[in-house]
């Protein structure tokens, strides 16, 4: 028993240490210029980590303003999209015939490239507010909503319908009503699937928030800064924002993992 725990612990330590060593090695190669030789590029296009960190340090206030703008859009869009997606999945479960057709339509939205979606939605939301800041935020949130809706609806639908074998028979023997069956069986069953969906849509929401900023009227956000700096050939600054964007994604993903661990642990 002790050996097993030990083995488990060693494995856990390994899964932290191994990527960490790899990461440190990568950054070391980057800083020493080895990476530049391997990738055949210069320190202009790929600035040294120390330079990037210096720029982040120098502009922390401005970067935080942009981070806040992007995170708001990503989180709001993610929440609205996931709720909407879940509602669609419920609709599809209750009305299986027309619902699953609707599900196909919703997932079709995912086939529209975001570079086409964003300008269209910005045009559609022109009358939402006379304040450019507000209508831009609304447009960006809608883009993220659409993107995160599809994965949630498809996954949640699976969670609500792919029940453990014989479980619905069991519910029937209890003479449970449809509502009881839904609340006691289907909803709990869909919880892991919600997290499967979120694992896809959390990175998706960050990326789509960044891309929608390219097109928004009100100039703000990490994505806009990346593009702005690349176009005026300020690669060091652009990298500072790219690194920032990665950190946003990692933090949001980590938060998701923690929530998932807490919620799913309670189930066991």
């Amino acid at each position: 028993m002790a050996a097993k725990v030990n083995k488990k612990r060693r494995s856990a330590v390994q899964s932290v240490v191994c990527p960490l060593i790899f990461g440190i090695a990568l950054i070391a190669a980057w800083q020493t210029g080895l990476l530049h030789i391997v990738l055949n590029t210069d320190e202009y296009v790929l600035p040294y980590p120390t330079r990037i960190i210096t720029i982040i340090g120098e502009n922390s206030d401005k970067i935080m303003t942009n981070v806040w703008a992007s995170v708001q859009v990503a989180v709001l869009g993610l929440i609205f999209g996931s709720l909407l997606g879940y509602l669609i999945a419920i609709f599809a479960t209750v009305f299986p015939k027309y619902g699953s057709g609707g599900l196909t339509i919703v997932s079709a939205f995912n086939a529209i490239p975001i570079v086409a979606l964003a300008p269209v939605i910005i045009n559609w939301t022109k009358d939402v507010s006379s304040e450019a800041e507000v209508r831009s935020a609304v447009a960006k949130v809608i883009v993220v909503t659409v993107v995160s809706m599809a994965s949630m609806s498809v996954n949640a639908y699976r969670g609500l319908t792919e029940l453990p074998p014989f479980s619905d028979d069991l519910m029937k023997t209890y003479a449970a009503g449809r509502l009881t069956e839904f609340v006691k069986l289907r909803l709990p069953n869909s919880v892991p699937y919600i997290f499967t969906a979120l694992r896809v849509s959390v990175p998706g929401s960050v990326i789509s928030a960044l891309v929608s900023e390219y097109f928004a009227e009100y100039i703000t956000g990490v994505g806009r800064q990346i593009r702005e700096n690349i176009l005026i050939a300020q690669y060091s600054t652009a990298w500072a924002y790219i690194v920032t964007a990665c950190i946003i994604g990692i933090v949001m993903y980590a938060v998701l993992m923690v929530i998932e661990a807490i919620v799913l642990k309670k189930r066991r």
Partner: protein
Amino acid sequence: MKAIRKIVNSKAFVTLVWIAVIIIIWEICAARVAEVKRTPENVLPHLSGVIDSLTSDRKINGSQTALGMVLENAGATLSRAAVGYVIGIAAGFILALLMSLSGIIEKIAFPYLMLIQLIPILGMAPIINAITGDIAVSRIVIAAILTFYPVAANTLAGFKAVRREAHELMYSYAANKLQLYTKTMIPACIPYFFTGLKISAPMAITASILVDTLQGGIGLGCLLSQSLKGAMTRYVFWDIVFFSAVIGILSFYIMGLIETLLCPYKRLEKKGR
């Protein structure tokens, strides 16, 4: 009567009803937009206008009609998407295989595999361009990067899903690693592999359109940004929006079809029903 009921109950009919509902809503909104906006086609055109633009034989640029232009650019984008997709699949499968062979590789690679999804790859495009030195190659590479994650993640899940008993059975037969993989692991992961393929097929297409916008030249994304920027008719933009949506959905079903054709288990499933 029975025949009618059969049609009404069919899946195709349901989808048609949905499409009809969407068209009706679209047209109502378009009618409203046409009343209040000076250039309604920039906001929400009537679908008839979009269809007209596809069927009209008027030349948009020096030599091509709208349809000709969309098709030519789509050809370029789709071929790049296909190459990127194949590279992405190969890389994803090999990585998944390596990860399942070695726990250490899995532990090292998996967090970074996730990280790739979180990198704003568009922002890194100029860097990839600088490395490859050629815009067409960069486009393919980026499309491959954006598509290989679902393949790798799903295939790995497939390897892991091989039942313990199967594993132990092979062990008791004293099968070597190669046999283990060719006889049990790879066959077992194929359904998962195809799930990855189905998810990433539309992604490869949207990714290719996205990376087209990086620089001028030929491609749906180039044409898309041109029609948004220039004095070209905006209907070209709408043509591309609809075209890319249709292609994206089709790609999903095409992969499903390929799965059915190649894999015996799918055909059996169908027969069983």
